[in-house]
């Protein structure tokens, strides 16, 4: 199993550009999440999904959009990038029926908006 994979690892965007951060998991997990981590801060939840076709806003959803057309993929879309979106983005997945309900994290995407 590859676990949770994220692409790209690094990206520099200009203000106003758009991009999609890709996230995929091969563990057949129903629950998937997007977090952002700013320097010196913990992770904050952007969006989450409890299954294909179902998404919901987290704590900091403004400026982002998500879709969940399959169980495996959960892309995060940034429209009109702003410097405030400079951060490290982590995707995670979990199996609510598993013994630990552990959230598995991807390696992260480091995004800089200039």
């Amino acid at each position, binding site marked *: 199993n590859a676990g949770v994979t994220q692409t790209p690892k690094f990206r520099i965007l200009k203000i106003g550009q758009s991009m999609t951060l890709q996230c995929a998991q091969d563990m057949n997990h129903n*629950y998937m999440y997007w977090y952002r981590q700013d320097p*010196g*801060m*913990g*992770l904050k*939840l952007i969006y*989450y999904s409890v299954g294909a076709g179902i998404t919901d806003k987290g704590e900091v959803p403004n400026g982002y959009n998500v879709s969940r057309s399959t169980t495996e993929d959960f892309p995060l879309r940034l429209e009109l990038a702003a410097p405030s979106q400079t951060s490290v983005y982590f995707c995670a997945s979990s199996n609510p029926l598993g013994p630990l309900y552990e959230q598995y*994290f991807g390696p992260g995407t480091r995004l800089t908006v200039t």
Partner: protein
Amino acid sequence: SQELEQSPQSLIVQEGKNLTINCTSSKTLYGLYWYKQKYGEGLIFLMMLQKGGEEKSHEKITAKLDEKKQQSSLHITASQPSHAGIYLCGADLSGGGADGLTFGKGTHLIIQP
């Protein structure tokens, strides 16, 4: 205000010494997760606690959840250079399980040889 407070923010410990990191909430911790993050990398799951008074150990790391389920501690015995990194506590504060975790700001741990 931060829903999950971690302390200390940073810690410098001499190799071989013991250390403790704390995670405190004003709300009930329905599930408390400890993760380790190496600089520039993803999060590695360490342990999860759910029951009041629960204690789990793995190698030299022990995590506890208090009886009231509002505070957890992570204790490392005889620290080694491999323990260096950022320790994050994450909590399920809603009890629903599906809507993600709330994280503390993290504790930066440096091990001095």
